[in-house]
Structures are given as C-alpha cells and as structure tokens.
C-alpha cells in the first residue's frame, strides 16, 4: 500500500520534475526616465524554460526590503522581459524587485532580487528635445515673417472658398433667406473649432452689414457660449446691436446623430441660402453636406478632418482643406500680422519637405535612420 502511494505521488510530481523550471536572469530595475516620479521600470532576461509549452509567464514582485516580504504587482506573459511599475506612491523610497517564473503545473522559480531603486521626478522630458527644438525654430521663423509683414505687403495665393464667403452672404441677402453656420462637433480646445469661430466672427459682421439673418445651431455648450458672444459682438461692431437675436445662436444637442438630424430638419424647413460647415466633423459630415445639397443651398465647408474631406469636396461648392481653414482669418482680414504668420507656416513647410527629402536620401545612401530617429518623439 505504501509503495502504491509513493508511485501515485511520483506520477503527480513527474510533470513538474520534467519541466525543471529556471528563473529569469539579469534582472534590472531603474527609475523610469521622463516621468513624474511614479514609475520604476523592471527588465529581465527570459527564463531558459520560457520555450516549454507548460511555461506560464512571470509574476513581478516588489518589497521595501531585500529579504522581503514581496508583494505581487502584476503578471506578464511568456517571452516578455519588461514591466513598468506605475504604482509608486512615494518618491525617493527604496524598493527591491524580483521576478518569479511560473508553470502550468504550479511550480515557480524566483530570480535574485534587484535593488535598491527609488523613483524620482524629471524636470525636463529629454524625449521631447526634438519637439522643443522644432517649436523654437518654428516660432522664430513665424515671428520673423510677422515682423517682415509690418514693413510690406506679402502675397497670399487665392483661396476660392474664402473668396466665396462674401458672394454667399450676398446671395442669402438677395434671396431673403438665412445663412446656416455649423461649428462642428469638437470642443473649444480644438484648433479647428477656434478657426471656425474666427470665421464666424467675420461672417457675423458681414451678415450685420447686409442685414441678413444668421442661424448658428451648436453642439458643444462652451462653443455655444463663445459663438453667441461672437455673433453679438459682430452685430455691435457694425453699429447694429438691434440685429442680434437671442434665438439665432442656440444649443441643439450633445448627441452626434441627434445633431445631424436636427440640422437636416433645419435645412429642409428653413431652406437657408448658404450653409457653412466649419470645424471638425465625424460621420455626420456627409449627412449634413448631402442634406444641404438637396435644398440647393450654396455650401462652403472647411475642416481638418482628413477622413471627412472627400465627403465635403463631393457635396459642397467650396471646401477649405486642412490649413486653409486656419488661414481663413488672415485671408479675410488681410491684416499684415496675420498674413506674416501664414508666410511663416509656408517657410516651415518647406523646411519639413527638405527634411523628408534629406531623410529619404540619407536612408537610401547610408542605410541609416539617424534623421528618421531625430523626428521620433519620446
């Protein structure tokens, strides 16, 4: 009977003994660079048993003392040799780490502990040095062009969509119908929305000048508040505060398809002579543009949503593509300072094109990705 028990025990232990689990080696723990002092990165060389089908991954453990006790932080699958401990709550406190190899049959093998290591905060993200460098160059070039613009008139190419703004307002005036202005779905923090608001300011002045009704249904509450003030100020600046109607700028809904449905309804019922679609749009772009096209309105769109541009180009009379939306304010006002900014942008674009060509040639001739790596943001 005793022999039988020994035999059964041997059978149960057989798979474990056969695996001969090896612990991971070369364990290393370092303070994660460029962070706020809440992270330590642990790396290790995978266990020799990692190739076995019964191998089950690694448990990463941490302790405040080398001898323990260790608490488990997380599990990493096989073939992994990296773990980022983001649960550090105290800076400059020493920690020790160990990694335990696990198998499906329940055994484990812990590595040697590594440490002490403490997390500390960084005061400059060295991985963003290239971004800082690029930003300084860009700002310097833009400011130089702005300074230059004060001295003389700079040429800007014709943008058909912006030339059509005045024509569109005039058409609505002649037809005695309102102008519909949409500001997109993004919040005020998006540059496209700010650019759309800038154009709204110009359109509001024009509509006040021609005494044309302007309808601005909004999607975002903060954008609504700003848009309302802009239209009001637009009327005031033209000496026509009486033209501002409280219900001309109104909040519709914060629901994407609800907004599309509401605007389609407004277009079908009120038949605006002109529709402006400025800002950032998503799937509702086509619903809006096609509904407007069906009413026969002249449509001017402007967006930096690359995925929605084809729909606007297809369904609208004029489309401002990407940066043309940002250029609108300078183009419409012709203010030298704003135009100088545009020229600065163009110069920086030339620099980028030169860098792309240089990087491509460098990679092809020297088989090196030095230039490519410079543009990688850490």
């Amino acid at each position, binding site marked *: 009977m005793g022999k039988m028990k020994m035999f059964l025990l041997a059978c149960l232990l057989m798979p474990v003994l056969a695996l001969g689990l090896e612990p991971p080696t070369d364990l290393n723990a370092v303070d994660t660079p460029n962070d706020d002092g809440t992270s330590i990165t642990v790396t290790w060389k995978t266990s020799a048993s990692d190739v076995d089908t019964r191998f089950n991954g690694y448990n990463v453990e941490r302790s405040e003392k080398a001898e323990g006790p260790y608490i488990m932080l997380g599990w990493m699958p096989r073939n992994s040799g990296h773990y980022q401990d983001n649960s550090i709550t105290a800076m400059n406190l020493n920690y020790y780490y160990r990694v335990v190899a696990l198998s499906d049959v329940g055994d484990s093998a812990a590595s040697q502990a590594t440490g002490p290591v403490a997390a500390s905060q960084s005061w400059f993200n060295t991985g963003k040095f290239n971004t800082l460098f690029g930003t300084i160059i860009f700002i310097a070039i833009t400011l130089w062009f702005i300074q230059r613009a004060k001295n003389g008139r700079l040429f800007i190419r014709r943008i058909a969509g912006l030339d059509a703004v005045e024509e569109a307002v005039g058409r609505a005036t002649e037809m005695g119908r309102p102008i519909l202005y949409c500001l997109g779905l993004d919040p005020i923090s998006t540059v496209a929305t700010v650019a759309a608001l800038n154009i709204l300011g110009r359109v509001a002045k024009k509509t006040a000048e021609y005494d044309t009704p302007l309808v601005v249904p909004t999607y975002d509450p903060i954008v609504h508040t700003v848009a309302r003030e802009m239209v009001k100020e637009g009327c005031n*600046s033209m000496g026509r505060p009486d033209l501002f109607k409280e219900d001309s700028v109104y909040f519709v809904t914060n629901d994407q398809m609800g907004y599309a449905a509401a605007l389609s309804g407004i277009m079908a019922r009120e038949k605006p002579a002109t529709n402006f679609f400025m800002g950032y749009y998503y799937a509702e772009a086509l619903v809006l543009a096609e509904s407007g096209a069906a009413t026969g309105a002249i449509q001017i769109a402007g967006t930096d949503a690359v995925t929605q541009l084809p729909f606007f180009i297809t369904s609208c009379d004029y489309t401002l593509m990407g940066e043309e939306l940002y250029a609108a304010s300078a183009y419409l006002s012709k203010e030298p300072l704003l135009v100088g900014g545009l020229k600065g942008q163009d110069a920086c674009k030339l620099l980028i094109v030169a860098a792309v060509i240089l990087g491509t040639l460098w990679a092809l001739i020297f088989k090196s990705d030095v230039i490519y790596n410079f543009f990688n943001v850490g």
Partner: protein
Amino acid sequence: MKRNVPLAIVFVLGVFFVVQFFIPSHPSQVAYNTMLEWDMALLVFATVIALDSLIRHHTQKIMRRQGQWGYSAVYLSAALLMALAGFIGGTTDTSFYMKLFQYAMSPMQTSMFAILAFYMASAAYRAFRARTAEATLLLISAFIVMLGLIPLGATIWGGMPRLSEWLMQVPNMASKRGITFGIGLGAVATSLKIILGIERNWLGGA
C-alpha cells in the same frame, strides 16, 4: 479692460501649457490636472446657459406659433419626458428611462446612421461622374480599389489586390500626409497667434 484681461489670461495660460508640455514632474502634472478640472467646472456652467438657450428657443417658437412650431412642442415634450423618467425612476437597467433609451432613442440614432449608406451612394454618383480628367482618374482609382477589396477583383486579375493596396498606401497616403503636415503647422501657427494676441477675432468685434 474688456479686451486686455482675456488677452492676458490667454497669454499666461498659453505659455503655461507650452512649458508644461515639456515638464513631466509631479507639480506640473498636478497643475495640468487642476486645469482640466476647471475645464469641467466651466462646462457645467456653460451647459446651464446652453440649456437655457435651447428651452427659450423652442418655447418662443411655440408661444409665437411660428412656422412648424409643432416640432418644437414634440422636442420639448420628449426632453421633459426623458428628464422626468431619469429623475423619478432612476437610470437602472430595468427603469423606464432605460426603456426609452433602448427602444426609442437608440433606434433613432441607428436609423440616422443607417441613412449614411444612401447619402454615400448619392455622393459617390456625383463624385464619379467622369466630367473632367481628374474625375475620370478618381473614378478609375476608386474602381480598382473597390475591386481589389473583393474576391472578384483577384479572379479578374491576380495583381488587383496589390494594385489596390498600392493606391491606398502610396498616392493616397502621400496626399494625406501632405495635408497632415499643413494641419500640424497651421494648428501651431494659429495657437501662437492667439497666445501672442495677434489673432483677436475670437474676442468678437475686437
């Protein structure tokens, strides 16, 4: 005063956020998160103003019996019903509010989304009319891309899927990246002009 105070706030906060982007330290993160919380607080107040405008707009339409005021009546009744259902009955899975959401609002949203298919067909018809050389090129490219994505394309010619992929990955990607460069630079330039107070149109009549 009315113009200088907002300009000063924008300048200080704009410079702060630019500098904060490069500083990962704890105080910098705390300051950034505090700003985000302020943003949320601002949103709450803005929502009250927005709702006031919404109710006022539709109420006035109903009271003045403006054209098609019935839609406004339906809208206000539906909004009131949803709000009361949520406040009184709660928003648990079995509540009346959730039933309204699942069996009325959600199908309406889905239907609106489904209409996109029809709009796409009409837009495609308009885009693919081969009136000019560019439109013809677009039509041919679109035809190849579509054929390359379905088994029939490979049956007609074995190289069709690869040609389709090349069109998407090379000429299409190149133009998309060109636009993206412009967008990136334009966004930075616009931000810079606003921070420095060169662009003041957002102030309204300024």
